[in-house]
């Protein structure tokens, strides 16, 4: 057995550090308690925005393409590194974000074309595909580790002044992340509900054979789904780092687990469920820091998940995923 890295913390560690502690120590009055709640709520909304981006991409990938892509977190971090490469050469962070998203899209599409899809055609199924995607993720992560080393990196950008609105205290960059997430969710919603492509995607997700029989070019739809979910994956990776401030090659692992928890919570394969799951887990983790030691806040996500599995093993919004018998 290899003794691996000792730093294996999930990615959502931010905001909570100094500011809240200071408030807690300095202003132990009733007013500060309320304040603290709203502050945490603000951070929870930021976390939820990032989680929703990642979870929708993850679940969309699964529902349309039938591949549970456990290399997702590693593609996220690879995208974050692409954005870092640009940002460190003086490119504006928001342009780097777009490039990171584009990289995520192309990388995911390429992974499917080069690795996942050939394995499925060859007859690798279900758990076999889990091993394939997990191995692919391991290779990506360690290739990054070999390239850039185990150091931590951060973007250089102006996070903007802290904006105080209705008790929230968020930086301009954090507000931009929330806004971006809302816009992207709306775009995904319109795409899925109102466009030809979105309808074709939903039809393919529901029954690929039937969709093909109806004249839908499912191969092209699946390509589009990989590009779209990959773009969400890349964007999620870059905004994660914009928010956490520092990252390294192994950051993706931990964050993927929280994304998976959100996706399962919402019923795997359900884009709207994933949005909801992301919001629930994002808020739960940040708000829990009010009452318990912040060291445990990632565990809260899993406790929520365990309860959901106990009460409703298929997730909050599942109906399709429980019935479907699919490949990969």
């Amino acid at each position, binding site marked *: 057995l290899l003794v*691996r890295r000792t730093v294996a913390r999930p990615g959502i560690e931010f905001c909570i550090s100094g500011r809240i502690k200071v408030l807690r120590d300095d202003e132990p009055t009733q007013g500060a308690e309320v304040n603290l709640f709203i502050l945490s709520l603000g951070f929870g909304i930021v976390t939820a925005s990032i989680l929703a981006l990642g979870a929708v991409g993850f679940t969309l990938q699964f529902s349309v393409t039938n591949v549970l892509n456990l290399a997702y977190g590693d593609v996220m971090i690879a995208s974050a590194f692409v954005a870092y490469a640009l940002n460190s050469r003086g490119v504006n962070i928001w342009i780097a974000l777009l490039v990171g998203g584009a990289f995520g899209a192309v990388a995911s599409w390429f992974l499917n074309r080069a690795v996942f899809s050939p394995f499925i055609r060859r007859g690798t199924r279900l758990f076999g595909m889990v091993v394939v995607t997990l191995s692919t993720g*391991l290779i990506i992560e360690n290739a990054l580790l070999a390239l850039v080393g185990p150091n931590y990196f951060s973007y250089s950008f102006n996070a903007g002044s802290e904006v105080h609105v209705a008790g929230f205290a968020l930086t301009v960059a954090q507000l931009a992340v929330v806004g971006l997430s809302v816009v992207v969710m709306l775009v995904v919603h319109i795409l899925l509900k109102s466009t030809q492509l979105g309808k074709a995607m939903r039809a393919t997700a529901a029954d690929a054979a039937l969709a093909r029989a109806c004249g839908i070019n499912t191969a092209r739809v699946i390509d589009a789904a990989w590009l779209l979910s990959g773009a969400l994956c890349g964007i999620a990776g870059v905004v994660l780092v914009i928010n956490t401030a520092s990252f390294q090659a192994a950051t993706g692992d931990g964050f993927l687990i929280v994304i998976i928890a959100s996706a399962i919570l919402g019923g795997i394969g359900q884009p709207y469920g994933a949005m909801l799951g992301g919001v629930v887990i994002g808020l739960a983790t940040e708000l829990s820091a009010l009452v318990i030691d912040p060291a445990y806040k990632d*565990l809260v996500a899993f406790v929520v998940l365990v309860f959901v*599995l106990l009460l409703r093993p298929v997730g909050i919004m599942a109906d399709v995923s429980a019935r479907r018998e699919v*490949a990969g």
Partner: protein
Amino acid sequence: VSSAVFFYVTTLLVYFGIDSLAVWGLNLQYGVAGVANLAFILFQAAGAYTAAILTLGPSTGNGGFQEYVGGATLPFPIPIIAGGVVAGVLSLVVGFLGLRRLRADYLAMVMLVVAVIGNELAQSDTGLVNGPAGLALIPQPLQDVLNLSPSAYQWFYVGLVAVICVVVYFVVRRITESPFGRSLRAVRENEHAAAAVGKNVASLRLIVFVVGGVIAGISGALFVQFIGAWSPGGWSYVETLVLLTAIIVGGQGNNVGVMVGALFVGVVFQEGARLLPTTWAPAGLIAALQWIVIGLCALLFLWFWPQGLIPERRRVFPLVPRKHTVDGRETSSVAGAP
């Protein structure tokens, strides 16, 4: 033979034995019954922590530099047995929660999450098993009674692991070659068909999950008693992938095959990297390359030799006409593969 080489070889033998135990446990779950247990390493860790705490004595010992719950100094076989029991009980709880009608890939995800929860808990709660620093200075079994020289003790441990391997091998073989094993394979091949002929799929899965968990616990206990230390960094969820790779390489479902896989992946690959010159590479590069090799190994075998080096014996009954036999691993209908 120099003493350094001697220590290296005996240590490798112990590792090989422990890895063999682990892959037998996981093979019973994944290879034979098709239960995708990506949290396997968690049960190994549970056994290791149990054995460690039951030999370390109260946490005030050794100057009280490590914090943990409980603590006792029990004589030799008890900590190892307790490791198996605790891992088995944990498997029962996790299996009861996680094995509820979940599809293989869905179950794999839940297990992945469970493995990370366990590791997180061990890291976050410093009072439970000393947090990220882990436990150290764990006494070796019978060291004080036997009073052996270090090299003789190495051989003693090799023998101990070998005896336990033989016992576990016969238990595992007894399971896989019995009607019960046949039921497990039926569940793996087609759970609906197995349920239709009256097999209780849920309880079969739970039983095999617990048996695999007990074996995992024993292997973890043996490991921690040998190396004398155990920390969360050493059992992140990817370690399960190493064991899975060993099973895929060796031949899933075949007890001898997976042992060969453990030799191949655990010893040849991981230890082979140590023989590389370290002067040209920065620290950490070789470890990263090792992981890349493990990942590539899993992919290449799944592509070229999905049955592994020593494939599972095809069980065909000669009296039944050929067309009625089920051959191949996957028989479930495939809808919607791109």
